[in-house]
């Protein structure tokens, strides 16, 4: 795959190594259901941090809470130093946070080009279409196709590609490898590694920790709506038994 020069992520660069996201005592509800029970973690600039956990542990809800698309949430979410717990999701996006949902969110009524161009640019530094086509050549050939007619892998590429256009510097990817063939997983892993190299900060939700291990700097384990453990990539081998127990694998 050709090396793509991605514009540097301004916020990440400005605060290299500093804390970009700090989540403290985050609680969230779906209607009457209490899902998150006091989540605490932080993400530093330029890191890839992975939330691991079983189905229903609260990983996706954590991402959605950060993005502001969960109706009721309490606690504190600080992004780039400012509190966003009460901020609407469109304003959070405009602060430079981008979200790629688990179900990919490809719009059936739009073709691939329209899907790609849909998110508005929130700050300078986003990828140009040419850079995106260098990263994901398949998309260039399918521009006129209906978004939902793409294969699962192509839809995932489209879902990631469209948030790279926006100039957002903090990317939240919810299970980007789910249901994909190994060769596509490898391609997505390479893309994440390249984005990290360029200074993007990435919060990843994964069940496939073998994939996460290839890209992540740190891990947090989510269980019953709480962070119950955390370790860095260098501590992964030492924590393997614990990890197997947590994930039930």
């Amino acid at each position, binding site marked *: 795959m050709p090396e793509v020069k991605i514009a540097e992520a301004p916020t990440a660069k400005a605060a290299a190594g500093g804390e970009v996201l700090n989540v403290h005592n985050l609680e969230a509800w779906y209607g009457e259901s209490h899902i998150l029970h006091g989540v605490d973690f932080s993400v530093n600039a330029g890191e890839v941090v992975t939330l691991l956990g079983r189905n229903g542990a609260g990983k996706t809800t954590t991402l959605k809470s950060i*993005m*502001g*698309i969960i109706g009721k949430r309490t606690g504190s979410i600080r992004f780039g130093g400012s509190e966003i717990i009460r901020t*609407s*999701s*469109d304003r*959070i*996006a*405009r602060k430079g946070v*981008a*979200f790629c*949902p688990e179900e990919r*969110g490809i*719009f*059936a*009524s*739009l073709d691939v080009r*329209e899907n790609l*161009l*849909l*998110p*508005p640019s*929130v700050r300078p530094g986003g990828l140009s279409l040419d850079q995106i086509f260098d990263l994901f050549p398949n998309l260039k050939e399918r521009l006129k196709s209906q978004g939902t007619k793409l294969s699962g892998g192509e839809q995932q590429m489209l879902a990631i590609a469209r*948030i790279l256009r*926006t100039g957002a510097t903090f990317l939240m990817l919810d299970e980007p490898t789910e249901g994909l063939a190994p060769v596509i997983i490898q391609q997505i892993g390479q893309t994440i590694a390249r984005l990290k190299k360029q200074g993007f900060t990435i919060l990843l939700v994964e069940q496939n920790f073998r994939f996460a291990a290839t890209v992540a700097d740190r891990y947090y384990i989510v269980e019953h709506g709480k962070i119950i453990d955390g370790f860095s990539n260098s501590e992964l081998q030492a924590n393997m038994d614990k990890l197997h127990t947590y994930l039930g694998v």
Partner: protein
Amino acid sequence: MQALYAQLLVGLINGSFYALLSLGLAVIFGMLNIINFAHGALYMMGAFCAYFLLNLAGINYWWALIIAPIIVGIFGMVLERTLLQWLTGLDHLYGLLLTFGIALIVQGVFQNYFGSSGLPYAIPDELRGGMNLGFMFLPVYRGWVVIFSLVVCLATWFLIEKTRLGAYLRAATENPTLVRAFGINVPRMITLTYGLGVGLAALAGVLSAPINQVRPLMGADLIIVVFAVVVIGGMGSIMGSIITGFALGVIEGLTKYFYPEASNTVVFVLMVLVLLVKPTGLTGRAA
């Protein structure tokens, strides 16, 4: 034969109003999921607005074509912000009942002040008279209504289907939460969309003022047929509403010529047949 052409023209003119009104309903339903029963009342307000502009401020028809849809559109946006937005996520029935109530109140207020009889609105000087086409006499104003409506309908279709703004609207119809998470202010877009739909109704009202007199119940008479048009075309379908609007106007006109007794019911008979064969309408999406 001239009578047939005359009925065809009447059908095309009615079709123009059906298309403009059902287009507004389709835009509103697509984006807000609200069956806007207040549409007829807002159409009537467009006609009254043109009447007030002319008689109180001396503003002529051409300016009224621009100003009245803006004024009534703003009124619609206020309605959306203050009342309709609270219905998000509720069953369609709530929206239908609320907008039906709004229609009754608006019509009641106008009827209280202006009675039920019509107020005259003159055809602008530039559009008076007619043309002899050889096979029929075409009043210029009626020809203008058909062409102008067609242009407005196609422009609206282009806006929604072929522009970036339209892509936002279509995407927000599918998944408003995700579109908002991309940084787009969806609540504001919903308000503006309702304003656009209402503005189209008001525009139809201004166009109608010189043909049909300006009356408080002019919308109530029309809205039931327009809903039948929308059901036949398919709720939420933009092109479906435009084509069905014009087509049913023509079918109604032809029925007036060939079998006048059925002219008032032909649209509803077609609606029943379409619902039996294709419950989502000719071009509509499934719920």
